[in-house]
């Protein structure tokens, strides 16, 4: 079995340094990056290798990421059943991602700091604390306090995140919130290649503002995993909110 990792332009394949186990399969202007599937079941290491390959490729040239574990019997099947049947569609999608990459930003909040700020400032929470400590208080009172606190923490962190990421959002073509809980906010940004430096500068400013309140993890450039639908569904995407929702 052969794994298909991604597709790029044939003219770009030459400029990418491929790991030894990866080879290319050509069909016209398109190239698929393939490798032999492991005999054993796929593991996390295979996921890391898949992503590493795509990251190495997208650093140099546009690449369409394929789903992890996309498998065909042999190289010929990669050509006949992956590249050729929808060559025009793949070419259109490659064009759509030509000038953009995905950058991801994780804000991991110091929840204790958020809770402390809320406990200091929020009169409703003060009242609920008193109730939860009353002589007849039980689980219901604690839950009410916890729910109110959780809501305030979420609001507090969302407001901070919005404020901090304003500059990065201005640089991005689109953004999508991938995950949000009481501690972590993970956002993907679609950024033009020629604006990555601007995005980096925005994140540096963000990092300074978030110091002591949240940890920052900033990753990229990645293939546009989070924007494939938006970029390739139609040649002329409809205007929409920058936030994608």
């Amino acid at each position, binding site marked *: 079995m052969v*794994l298909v990792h991604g*597709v790029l332009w044939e003219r770009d394949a030459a400029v990418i340094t491929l790991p030894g186990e990866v080879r290319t399969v050509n069909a016209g202007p398109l190239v698929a990056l393939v490798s032999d599937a492991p005999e054993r*079941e*796929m*593991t*996390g290491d295979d*996921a*890391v290798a898949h*992503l*590493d390959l795509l*990251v190495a490729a997208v650093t140099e040239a546009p690449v369409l*990421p*394929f*789903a*992890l*574990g*996309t*498998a*065909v019997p042999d190289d010929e099947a990669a050509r006949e*059943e*992956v590249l050729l*049947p929808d060559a025009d569609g*793949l070419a259109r999608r490659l064009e759509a991602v030509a000038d953009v990459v995905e*950058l991801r930003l994780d804000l991991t909040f110091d*929840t204790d700091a958020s*809770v*402390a700020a809320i*406990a200091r400032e929020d009169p409703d929470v003060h009242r609920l*604390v008193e109730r*939860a*400590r009353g002589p007849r208080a039980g*689980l*219901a009172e*604690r*839950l009410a*306090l*916890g*729910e109110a*606190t*959780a*809501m305030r923490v979420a609001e507090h962190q969302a407001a901070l995140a919005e404020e901090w990421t304003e500059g990065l959002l201005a640089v991005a073509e689109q953004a999508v*919130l*991938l*995950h949000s*809980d*009481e*501690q*972590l906010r*993970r956002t993907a940004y679609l950024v033009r290649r020629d604006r990555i*430096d601007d995005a*980096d*500068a925005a*994140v*540096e400013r963000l*990092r300074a503002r978030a110091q002591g309140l949240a940890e920052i993890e*900033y990753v*990229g450039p990645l293939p546009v*995993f989070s924007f494939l*639908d938006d970029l*390739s569904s139609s040649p002329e995407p409809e205007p929409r909110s920058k936030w994608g929702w």
Partner: protein
Amino acid sequence: MTMSSVNRAPRPSGLADVLDVVLDKGIVIDAYIRVSLVGIELLTIDARIVIASVDTYLRFAEAVNRLDIQPQDQVAGLPGLMREMTQGGAKSKTKGALTGAKESVQGALSGLTGRDKDEDDEDGGERQESRSAPASRRAPQRS
């Protein structure tokens, strides 16, 4: 493209975050009989469980309670609270509170997802390394 001096990583460092990037993402070719999707061994992420919102609320309640006044006897911690929940006298009231909490959290925190079951990560299990939120899951590309 050059790597600037900014602290930008080429990819996530942890396996859970790598999986968050690549699992269920990317173009899917499914119209041809010889193309298949090979599954990945998911032990690492199947170990996750969804923590009930009630637990989240109780942790926040305790966090607030600890802040400005000396802890009191009633701050029982989760094991104590669980005992309280199963005691007959408190049952009916508890059930009502739990139901209400669950309903409200589904509306308020619909993005809540998983959390590592094992608590031995370096942050003491506090950090939630999770797969992408269900609400943000994107349908695979179809070709």
